[in-house]
């Protein structure tokens, strides 16, 4: 085993299927024989709160369930305000995958707080980190609602980037989701592969 382990933060908001995402990914690493710790820090998820999952796999026993700021290898984010919250946690050569989806925060909606004046996408691009920006709007089509499937799309993107076996991943999806959702999920996974193959990093 060449890869001795990585630290990943998965971020987004309630209802984006982040727990399923980390569950599927954990099964992949389990099959490879890694040790794992996954810690979910859940706000008031179902009510528009932030969701954050610390995902660590390693050839040695994983100690802390939380990843120290500065030790994150990959940030996989489903919402761009949430992306900003974790940029400082990445290693210098850490890599960010971020959706441009944005769920405005209640504090801004209600004017308890001002929104950031700059474009969040630009802030992410200018973070000095290697970033992959995914704009779900670009891939929206009448027969495929990507916003509801972003977790599976992200799984495919990450797997492609890491050079993992798509066959294996699809098998895990098959074993894990209810029968009636399998076809839709596989379609989303395939879409994810094609998105990943077109993606170019920033800078």
């Amino acid at each position, binding site marked *: 085993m060449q890869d001795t382990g990585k630290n990943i933060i998965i971020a987004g908001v309630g209802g984006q299927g982040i727990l399923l995402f980390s569950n599927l990914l954990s099964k992949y690493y389990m099959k490879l024989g890694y040790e*794992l710790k996954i*810690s979910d820090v859940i706000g008031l998820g179902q009510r528009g709160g932030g969701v954050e999952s610390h995902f660590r796999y390693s050839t040695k026993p994983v100690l802390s369930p939380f990843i120290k700021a500065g030790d994150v290898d990959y940030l996989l984010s489903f919402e761009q305000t949430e992306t900003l919250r974790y940029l*400082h946690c990445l290693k210098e050569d850490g890599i960010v995958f971020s959706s441009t989806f944005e769920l405005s925060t209640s504090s801004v909606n209600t004017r*308890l707080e001002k929104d950031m004046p700059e474009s969040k996408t630009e802030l992410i691009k200018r973070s000095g980190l290697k970033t992959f920006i995914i704009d779900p709007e670009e891939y929206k089509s009448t027969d495929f609602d990507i916003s509801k499937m972003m977790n599976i799309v992200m799984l495919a993107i990450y797997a492609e980037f890491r050079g993992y076996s798509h066959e294996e991943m699809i098998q895990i999806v098959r074993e894990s989701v209810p029968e009636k959702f399998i076809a839709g999920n596989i379609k989303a996974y395939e879409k994810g592969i094609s998105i990943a193959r077109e993606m170019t990093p920033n800078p």
Partner: protein
Amino acid sequence: MKMMNGNEAVARGAFEAGVKVASGFPGTPSTEVMDYTQQRYPDIYCEWSTNEKVGLEVAIGASFAGYRSLAVMKTVGLHVAADALGGAAGSQINGGLVLVVGDDVGRIAGDDYNDVRHYGNMFNIPVLEPSDSQEAKDLMIRAFEISEEYSTPVILKITSVICKTTSAVAIDEDYTYKVKCRKKYTVSFSKVIMTTMMMNAKGSEHPKLVKCFNDFPAHMKRLAADSNGFDINKLELKGNKIGVITAGTPYFYTKEVLPDASILKLGMVMPLPEKLIRELAAHVEKLYVIEDGHDIMEKNIKDLGIVVIGKELFPKFPEMMRFTPDIIEEKLLPDAPKRTLMEGIPFRLPVSCAGCSHLFISQILRKHKIKASADVTCGLIGCFPHMESYSLQKCMGSSIALAHGYNVATDHKEKFVGMIGDGGFWATGINGLMNLIFNDSQSTTIIVDNSCLAMTGGQHVASSEFGFNYKPENKLEIAKVCEAIGVKDIVTVDAYEFENLEKAILNAVKADTNSVVIVEKPCVTKFKLPKGDAYSIDQELCTQCRKCINIGCLAIESKKGKDGKVEIVINEDLCVGCGLCSTACKFDAIKS
């Protein structure tokens, strides 16, 4: 090996310990201990009780019957059950009695900053604390053994981090469930009886006296002495510069940040293994205590006359919500690079689900400037500054008595209304209602009947039409109970009939008699109510007065459009078509 989070592992531990009865009351982060137990281990009798005190009393009774019993709650729940625990502490234990109590460290889900270990000190009972899922399972079994061996209730402290962290647990898939009945004592009395015995009859051999006597101080002394040899307390002697006494997940943070430190890792945080602590203290130059929550081990160690560094280096709340590896690194390895969060990122204030019945009530209270108290329910979102529907909010079950207190103090001149969920009502709120009736109060109570404990994820209550032990003939009726208690004026309304609801609340507030308004609508999220057509905002008519945003619906957003102009829009995916926002718009801009 199986991947399990802490709650699953505790449930598995209960199964392997041969628990017969599990009772308790939901509360983040430990609610799922009961859910997993009930779903996976049907041999175990499970119940959500009306409140934590009742839940613990059920477990105490089952334990006296000779069977291992478990009570589940969060730490604020143990405040409610504290009297029951006081009664059980020090008394004769037949079947092991274990309380699984969740400390919501770090306020991950918005709880107060509590620490269950205070009860260990207060009642002189042992507290165990796991560091990962494997230990959660193992310590659960161990807790029952200790409970029986030392005749004491045992607290298993779990935290939001343990509950929500998944790691591997060794499981024997073919394990078969075994229950045994251990009937060692024929009586079990509270300490009041025992101390009376002790003062008058210690040493007596009269069988009637011996039968009642339980030498609890001796049990605890023996446990403290034995704890030095417990394998769950591990002394890892390494370098002699830094020594750390720690427990729970902070053990792993410590090991990761300070790989060369000598560590005493406690699986039982109370009572403390004095010998091991002295051994570590003698081995190292500086001794630290790294514990989540309050400075409880620290104080107990300092009481032994041992010098340790704790709070002075790691100030507790509000400076720190919970330990992280980062905090330990910052304080003990000051040369490590510092990372800071980007400034100005907006925070996410909780909001209600789209279509929630609470929003209708909040809206009416605000619109008519009715003063009201909120209970601990999903409806407490109405306390937040964008909604301002409630001016008073305290603990679960309190809102009815709070309103009554306000009303008697103000001679009922301005009617203060109490809003409470059905769960809070059955839990302890019902006492507030009985109290105000026989004390001749004219208070108004709004009971939000959404058929479940919504805020903790939709567990059943006494008036639900589902539940672990549900039978239609046993369902309690809120209206009938209110009537029996003697409430003069009771109306039941559908939350979505806005005008009726408004009328009902206004009538109740105006009347000079006590009254209850029962607002019916199943929780949209728990019961996945069918969605109606989405509403939308006509941008031509919208004046951006933001009245609709302040109703607190998740689906209404203020967004920058492509041209950079801010628009108030309804998120089609989230809107359930309840129509509340359209009642708030004076410009008729919101339509179906």
